[in-house]
């Protein structure tokens, strides 16, 4: 692995995780109780899990279609390009937090979709920069993966948005039982 790829690796990883945490928190934020800990906690878990899946999938597919590059320069080159691409999430993460906590909007989907799509383009561009030639297949594949993931995010959050409420209700019920109360 080249030295420049190692430089700032921990920071890049931290920033990527923070961006997905922000996305998760914003997506599962409760409009009437923005600081609900169940929603925030669930958002963090889902955001991190989604971010992990997205990263693995994007770099996996880019590795798969760039066999020659992988052999010549190692898979770390592809991983590095994806890591740099993920930094493009930062403006969108900041904007989604402003929209959720300052404007009190409940429409994080557009911000997250735009951010994820920006990652696709940025990763392909970074890969082209590292290899010295821009390839259309990388742009198409990464944009395709990002489109699928933004769709997956928007569809899954529609369903999962009910889960923090169930968790909160379940915990309240259990705590009342353990404190000596009755269910009936």
């Amino acid at each position, binding site marked *: 692995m080249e030295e420049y790829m190692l430089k700032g690796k921990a920071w890049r990883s931290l920033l990527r995780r923070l961006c997905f945490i922000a996305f998760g928190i914003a997506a599962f934020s409760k409009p009437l109780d923005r600081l609900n800990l169940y929603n925030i906690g669930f958002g963090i878990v889902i955001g991190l899990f989604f971010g992990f899946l997205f990263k693995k999938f994007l770099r996996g597919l880019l590795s798969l279609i760039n066999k020659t590059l992988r052999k010549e320069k190692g898979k770390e080159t592809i991983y590095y390009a994806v890591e740099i691409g993920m930094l*493009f999430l930062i403006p969108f993460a900041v904007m989604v937090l*402003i929209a959720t906590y*300052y404007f009190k909007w409940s429409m994080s989907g557009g911000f997250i979709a735009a951010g994820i*799509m920006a990652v696709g*383009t940025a990763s392909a561009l970074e890969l082209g920069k590292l290899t010295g030639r821009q390839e259309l297949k990388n742009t198409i594949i990464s944009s395709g993966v990002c489109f699928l993931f933004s769709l997956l995010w928007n569809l899954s959050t529609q369903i999962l948005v009910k889960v923090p409420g169930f968790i909160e209700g379940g915990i309240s019920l259990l705590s009342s039982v353990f404190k000596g109360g009755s269910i009936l």
Partner: protein
Amino acid sequence: MMVSPASVLKSAMAKVPWVLSLVVSAMAFCLFFLQTALDLYKTGQKGLTFVLLSAGAGIAYGLIVIPLLGVIIWLVLKLAKSAKDLKWVVSSLCLSYSGAMIYGLLGILFSLVFAWKTSVAFGVTGVLWAIGPMIIAIRATTDGKNMLSIPIATVVSGIVLLSWSLFGQL
């Protein structure tokens, strides 16, 4: 832009007259602010005069505020020893709103024909889609340094979003 943004930018910026880039940002914000005013007009919160004034305010925003932000970015880049001239930086910042202009045109269409409320769905989305080209444009001026382009794009986009919300509260 999708394949080799730096080289495309270099050749495109050489051909595009700088006035045209100002027209793009003026149009983009005119349409964005107009949609906001139309949304408020539809709910009876504002009158027709406000709608017309909003279009003017949007043009002024695109003609003055965005180029002014471009000047600030240029000063920051100058400190980072960028060789790009002021005209290039301002033009590329203004042109990064060309996607927002397209969203604005579509938004106005849906607002007028289908009576939809479009300021957030089309207007804010357009501003969001300007972030990517903006990062790429700034990156091209700093030889691919993300350390500058990403924070600058974050601040500019945040300013645009917050100032737009202030306008909506007028």
